[in-house]
C-alpha cells in the first residue's frame, strides 16, 4: 500500500479523473503513474473497477449502484484518505497496480454462453414471439457488463452472479431452449475449473452490481442445473 496526495480535486470530477490527476502529477515528478483499467467512462463497457474503501466500485460511498467511472468525488469528504485496491480473487490475477486479468469471464462464455445461430441462418424475427414478462426478465439479466465486481465482493470469490446472468438471459428466451441444459453444465464446469468459489447465497454480489442483476438469477441457474440432471437437450 502506498499513500499519494492529490491536490485540487473538484467535487465534479469522477473517481477516475482524480486518478488521472494523480498520474499527471506523478509523471511530472518523474514517478511511475498508477495503472488502472478504464475505457468508456460512462458505466457501460465494464472495463473499470476497483475496490474503494472496502466496497467494489465504491458502492459503499455512492447513493446509487455505480461503476467506478460514474462515482464522483463529491461522494468523499475533503481531505479524506481513500483506500483503493484492485479486484482481489485468484481467477483475476493482478496485471499491474489496479489492473486485473478477467479473461476467465470470456472462457465461461466460450463454454456455452451463446445461442448457436450462424450468420444468415436466422428465421424471420417475428417467427417466435416472446412474452413481455419473459423478455423483461431476460433483459434484466442481459444488462450484465462483465465488470467482475460480483467476484470482487464475494467472500467466496464466486462468479455465480455473472454466470447466472447469462444463463437466465438465454433460458428465458425461446431461442435459448435447444441448448439450455447442456449450456448450464458446460458453463458451470468451466466456472469451477477457472478456480472461482462456490455460491453460499450471501448476496454481496448483487449489492455491488452496477447493473443490479437480480440475485434471483442465481436461483434460476440452480433450478436449471438441477433440471439438467434429469433433462437432456433435444428430448
Amino acid at each position, binding site marked *: 500500500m502506498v499513500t499519494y496526495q492529490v491536490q485540487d480535486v473538484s467535487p465534479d470530477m469522477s473517481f477516475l479523473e482524480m486518478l*488521472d490527476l494523480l498520474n499527471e502529477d506523478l*509523471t511530472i515528478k518523474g514517478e511511475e503513474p498508477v495503472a488502472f483499467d478504464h475505457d*468508456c467512462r460512462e458505466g457501460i463497457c465494464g472495463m473499470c473497477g476497483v475496490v474503494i474503501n472496502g466496497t467494489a466500485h465504491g458502492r459503499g460511498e455512492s447513493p446509487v449502484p455505480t461503476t467506478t467511472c460514474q462515482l464522483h468525488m463529491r461522494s468523499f469528504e475533503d481531505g479524506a484518505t481513500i483506500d483503493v485496491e484492485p479486484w482481489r480473487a485468484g481467477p483475476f490475477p493482478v*496485471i499491474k497496480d489496479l489492473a486485473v486479468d478477467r479473461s476467465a469471464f470470456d472462457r465461461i462464455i466460450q463454454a456455452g454462453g451463446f*445461442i448457436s445461430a450462424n*450468420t444468415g441462418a436466422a428465421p424471420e424475427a417475428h417467427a417466435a414471439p416472446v412474452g413481455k414478462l419473459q*423478455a423483461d426478465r431476460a433483459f434484466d439479466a*442481459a444488462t450484465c457488463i462483465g465488470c467482475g465486481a460480483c467476484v470482487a465482493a464475494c467472500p467466496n470469490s464466486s462468479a455465480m452472479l455473472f454466470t447466472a446472468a447469462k444463463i437466465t438471459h438465454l433460458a428465458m428466451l425461446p431461442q435459448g431452449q435447444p441448448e439450455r441444459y447442456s449450456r448450464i453444465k458446460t458453463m458451470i464446469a468451466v466456472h469451477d475449473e477457472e478456480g472461482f468459489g462456490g455460491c453460499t447465497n450471501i448476496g454481496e454480489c448483487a449489492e455491488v452490481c452496477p447493473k443490479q442483476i437480480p440475485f434471483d438469477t442465481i436461483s434460476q441457474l440452480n433450478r436449471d442445473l438441477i433440471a439438467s440432471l434429469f433433462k437432456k437437450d433435444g428430448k
Partner: protein
Amino acid sequence: MTTTTKPAAPTTAKTASTDFFEVGADIKDAKAPAGAIEQKWSKRKFEAKLVNPSNRRKLTVIIVGTGLAGGAAAASLGEAGYNVLNFCYQDSPRRAHSIAAQGGINAAKNYRNDNDSTFRLFYDTVKGGDYRARETNVYRLAEVSANIIDQCVAQGVPFAREYGGLLDNRSFGGVQVQRTFYARGQTGQQLLIGAYQALERQVAAGTVKMHTRHEMLEIIIVDGRARGIITRDMVTGAIETHFADAVVLATGGYGNVFFLSTNAMGCNVTANWRAHRKGAYFGNPCYTQIHPTCIPVHGETQSKLTLMSESLRNDGRIWVPKNAADCEKDPRQIAEADRDYYLERIYPAFGNLVPRDIASRQAKNMCDEGRGVGPAVKEFDENGNERFVRRGVYLDFAEAIGRLTKEGVASRYGNLFDMYAQITGEDPYETPMRIYPAVHYTMGGLWVDYDLSSNVPGLYVTGEANFSDHGANRLGASALMQGLADGYFVLPNTINDYLAGASALPKVDASHPAAVEALDSVKDRIAKLLAVNGNRTVDSFHKELGNIMWEYCGMYRTEAGLIKAIGLIQKLRESFWKDVKVSGVNEDFNQTLERAGRVVDFMELGELMCVDALHRRESCGGHFRAESQTEDGEALRHDDEYAYVAAWEYTGTAQAPILHKEPLEYEFIELKQRSYK
C-alpha cells in the same frame, strides 16, 4: 495539474487553401455492378469469386477490432471456416465502444405498416447524409438491414417487445416512419453482446484466435498487398508480427482527436492512420458529427463527455439568459422575461427540434456571446490568450413538468434524469439541466469501394472506420445498422472475391523485408517516444490538440481559422517530440506509452482533417463552413463543385497530401437542398 503552454502564433507562409494539398487523378468504385439498384447486391454476390469450404481453413484473415463491425465479421468468417486472428486493445472483445450506443438500430421491416421500405430507408439515409454518400453502398445497407434484426433475435438479443410478444419500434430523428428497434437505452450493448457471444462460440470452436490487450501499431504491405500487422502486447510490451491473406480494419472512429468526445478513452486512429501512411486513402476526414445534448464540461480535468438521448429536446426548452450578467445566477431566479429561448426565437417553425448541427452551432454562438451557463472553462482565444468561458445552455423541463407532472416526465426521461443527477450532482427535476454539444461520431474514414476494400488490395475496412454510408451526416440509429451490416452480411460476402486468389500469392514470414521494416519502424517509434524525456505529459498535448481542433475544426469552420489550426498543430507536433514525458519502459503494462503513440497519430490526422475542411468550401451535414451559409445561417451546399468524396493520399508528415476525387453520381435519388422551413 496539466501544464498547458500557450500556443504560439502560426508562422506558416501558406495562405491560400490550395497551398495545402495537391490534386491527383479521380478515383471510382469499380465493384458495384451496373443495372437497377435493387439488383446490384444480388448481382455482385453472384459475380464474386467463391472459396471452396475445404480451402477456407487454409486462408487466414486478420480482423482488428471486436465491435459490431469487427466482432460480427470475425464470428461470421469463423463460421464460414476461415482462420481468423482477431485483435482488440480492451481486455475483452465485449468492451468495444459499440457498447455505448443508446438509442436503437434502424431496419426496413415495415412492422408498423407505415409505408416503410428498403427504398425509403435508402432515401432517408442519403438525404440525412446531405447527399454526400455513395448511392450503391447505402442501398445495400438498407437492403440487408432487415436481416440484421432476424440475426440478432436468433442470437438472443432482447429487443423491446410488446405484450403480444412481437418486437416494438420507436421513431427517431429525421424520419417519418417507426423503424427503430431498441433494447431500452442499451441497444448497442445488447447487439454487441450478441456479436460477442457468436464470436466466443467461434473462439471455442477454434476458428477464431482472440488477442485481447493487443494494439495494432503497423500494417505490413508486401508487393502492394496487405499481408499482416505489427502489434504490441499491452501487458508485456512484446512487439509481435502476424501474417494473413487479408487484413480487415474495424477500428471505429477518431472522435478522440478532439480529446473530449463521447468516445471511449481508448478509441484511437492509429490502426487506420498507419494504413493511411502505407497507402490507404482517407475519405472525408473532416465530416464529424457533433451531438447537441451532452453533459457540459465541468473543468480542466474533464476526461470525457457523456451523451444524453436527443429525445430530451421533445419536451425540454433550451434557453440562456438574455443578459450576460445573469449567467451566474440560480436559473430559477431569472425572470421569464430575462430568458432567451433562442431556438424558438430564431427557428419558430422547428423550435427546439431543429437538426443536430443547427442546435449545436447555436449553443456555441450563445456561449461565444458570453451568455453560456455553468462553470467557466479555461480556453484560448484566437490570439492565444487565456480566457474563461461558460460552455453550457439550459435545457429546462419546468414547463413540461407543469404540463405532464413530475411523474409524467419521469416516465419518459427518468433514466436520463438519473444519469444527469449522478454525473452533475444536480437534480434536473428542480433546476434546469445544462447541456452542450460534443463530438460524437466521425462519418469520415478510410476510403473503400463497394466491396469494402480500400485502395490497397487485401485491406478491408468496416463500420465507423470506413467512410462509406453516412455521407456528411449520420442519422440516428444508423451506426449500429452499418456496423452489423458490414460485419455480418457485406464483408463475409465480398472478401471471398479477394481471398479466392490469395492462396496463389507467395508466402511471407517474419524474415520478409517488408515485415522487418514494419517491425523495426514500430520499435524505433517506441524507442523515440521513451527517449524524449521532456517535461510535459502526453495528456497535456492531447488536450491542447483537442482545443485546437474544437476551436477551429469543430462546429464552425472558417478559411482563416483552419489555416491557423494547421500551423498550430505543426508547432504542437514539434513541441511534442521535444517536450513530451513518457515514463516507464516498453516491456511493461505502460499506459502512458500507449497514449503517447495514439496522440502522435491524432496530431497528423488532425492536420489532415483541417486540410480537408479547408478544401471543402461548402457546408454540408456536419461540416459547416462559415463562408457557405444561407441568409438564415443554414448550411449551403455547392453540388456543382463538391459533389464528390475527398479521398486523401498520404505523402509524408507535414507534406501536402494528394486529393483524389470520387465523383458522386445520383442516379436514383434527386439532389435537393436541405430545408427546415
